[in-house]
């Protein structure tokens, strides 16, 4: 297993796309978060704005990069035919997928933690000046804020793993990217488009993006479709399901 991880690590970091993807993840996430923080105002008490979700708004764009990183980690091998060499070197397919998932998840986790930490820190510094004060009912140094940061970091990592699983299942980066991004973004669009409130709420519960966002919420928790940790659990189920499906198909099929 250690050799498999080392091989995958060497492959990942010799691909020029890897540092670019991680840099894009950090830059785009921080940029969207900072614009959101910079324009948010809370003029009165109980203004209904969630400081954690403002600070973590970059996740909406960052997740597309995380998903792309996950897809390309395996999809690229199918595009170039490298997969044949890889499977010759590591014939245990479960081991290969596990090594790939670890090599993918580690850097994405670190990059996400850094980007979201920077964004949250900017929020904690800037938002009190925009009316998010104790007098308006906000405590920016709370455990809930730390939990939101933690959930968002794990969420981005799980999205990358989801991308890897789908890529393993469909063996094509283009189709896999379309599927993962569709899975992420179309659930909330459909939930908004549908008139029936009960159906919309159910869609918000099962959609990976909206469920994952529940974990980043720190106010009005009782109004959420899911509790924060349950929301993260839904995302984990999606990622696990994708990896399991991808693993089984990888095992069953020729490369």
């Amino acid at each position: 297993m250690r050799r498999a991880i080392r091989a995958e690590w060497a492959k990942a970091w010799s691909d020029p796309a890897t540092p670019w993807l991680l840099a894009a993840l950090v830059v785009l996430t921080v940029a969207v978060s900072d614009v959101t923080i910079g324009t948010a105002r809370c003029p009165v008490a109980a203004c209904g704005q969630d400081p954690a979700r403002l600070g973590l708004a970059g996740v909406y764009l960052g997740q597309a990069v995380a998903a792309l990183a996950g897809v390309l980690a395996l999809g690229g091998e199918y595009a170039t035919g490298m997969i044949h060499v890889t499977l010759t070197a590591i014939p245990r397919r479960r081991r290969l997928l596990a090594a790939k998932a670890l090599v993918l998840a580690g850097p994405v986790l670190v990059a996400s933690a850094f980007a979201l930490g920077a964004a949250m820190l900017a929020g904690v510094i800037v938002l009190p000046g925009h009316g998010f004060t104790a007098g308006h009912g906000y405590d920016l140094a709370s455990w809930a804020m730390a939990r939101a940061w933690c959930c968002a970091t794990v969420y981005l990592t799980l999205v990358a793993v989801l991308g890897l699983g789908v890529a393993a299942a469909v063996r094509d980066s283009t189709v896999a990217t379309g599927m993962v991004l569709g899975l992420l973004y179309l659930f909330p669009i459909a939930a908004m488009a549908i008139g029936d409130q009960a159906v919309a709420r159910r869609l918000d519960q099962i959609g990976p993006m909206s469920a994952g966002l529940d974990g980043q919420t720190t106010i009005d928790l009782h109004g959420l479709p899911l509790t924060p940790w349950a929301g993260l659990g839904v995302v984990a189920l999606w990622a696990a399901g994708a990896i399991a499906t991808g693993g089984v198909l990888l095992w069953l099929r020729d490369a």
Partner: protein
Amino acid sequence: MIRAGVIRAEWVKFRSVRGWVVAVVVAAIAIVGFAIDGGAQGSCYGNSCAQPTGPGGEAVSDSFYFVHQALAGNGAITVRVASLTSAVRSPRGGTQRVVVPWAKAGIIVKAGLTPGSAYAAIMVTGSRGVRMQDDFTGDIAGPAMQAGWLRLVRSSGSVITGYASADGTRWTRVGAVTLPGLPTTVQGGLFTTSPQWTQTSLGVAAITGDASQSTAVFDHAALTWRGAWTGTDVGGSSGGPAAGPATGYSRAGRVITIVGSGDIAPATSGPSGLGVTPAQTLAGAFIALTILAVTGAMFMTAEYRHRLIRVTLAACPMRGRVLAAKTLVTGLVAFATALAGTAVAVPAGERVLRSHGVYLPPLTALTETRMIVGTAAALAVCTVLAVAISTVARRGAAAIAAVVALIVVPYVLTVSIPVLPLGAADWLMCVTPAAAFAVEQTTVQYPQVDDVYAPAYGYFPLAPWAGFAVLCAWTAVFLTLAAVALKRRDA
């Protein structure tokens, strides 16, 4: 000129991939399906929510408390508004004093008591100073006073002039309006009204609001005419009085106190208005857009993935023509698909919404056509943009991620999950290709009506065709890049 053969070749390529054909059909079904899913529920059956229409034909709110008398011919009304105060229901019970920016109290002359009839008025407002307004859409700003003297003069039959003064001696002319066809005898007098009070704490995530009620104290009323005052609650109190005493008026010597609720203004949709915008019927269009754009991106990147591009370029060495043919085929397929969807979705969706009691403001045939054709055109151009981006990127995964980041993410952030504060949302809807969704705009944003004018409620910062032009500019830039890249690079 592109030869027909090149176009036909691209069409055959598109048609022969089953997945793409299925995707296109699914896109059309999505547009119609979300329009007629029928989940929305309202309480406006029959004409119960029909709003009056103003002299200009637009839907208007016209409810206020009117202390009036019949006035024949020319003359003037002068009055001092001693105070104007507003209140809403307090969350803790009882009432709560608030500033309602567009609470209105002043002098009005109106063609009749029917809601929607022509009028001209001069008024003080909650926080917008003195205003001279006429026929619902006219609005002239006067001095910034919260209380003071007002005068309305009717001269030469149809010309009405408004004046304001802080002390009753030195007068400022605020403006003059002409009301063509104003009858000789009109209803004129004093009024108070108070629109929905909405507090947006930025973003649309948090909106709190309630019908408000305002109380105005008038004194020193002086009229050219001699008659008796009558009190009428014009338009009924449709919003329902929110707080405090019931609407009405009382007199104590020369002091008249009027309590009113409602508004004299163009009707808007959104949280402070009634019903939904007809753009609701096109909710599925964005899902169709995502499907079509991904299909467009794959149509191009598949050439590179399967090395088919070499055959294509060998068959047609003029590379610009290949790009033009691909653009034309995807654009036309997307336009036809989307048009088939929207042409059914808009009328059918409106019917379903109305049958479920959801109020929709009246639409002109021209606006409806613009929604149907404009949305289809926006989807087609977005698909072409996806083709152009993927020609530059060549790798399907990167192309799809770029398309999603440019078109889908701005839409999700501003419309589906409106987390962005209003300023940032408006900015995104001005500069990203998602600006093209302004073609679905059916409502006008009026500065004299406070509402949450957010993209999430169908109010786009750009005019329909300006938003569409933003998308076209993006597409033109990427098509140019694509043409250059295709010519310069080896396949």
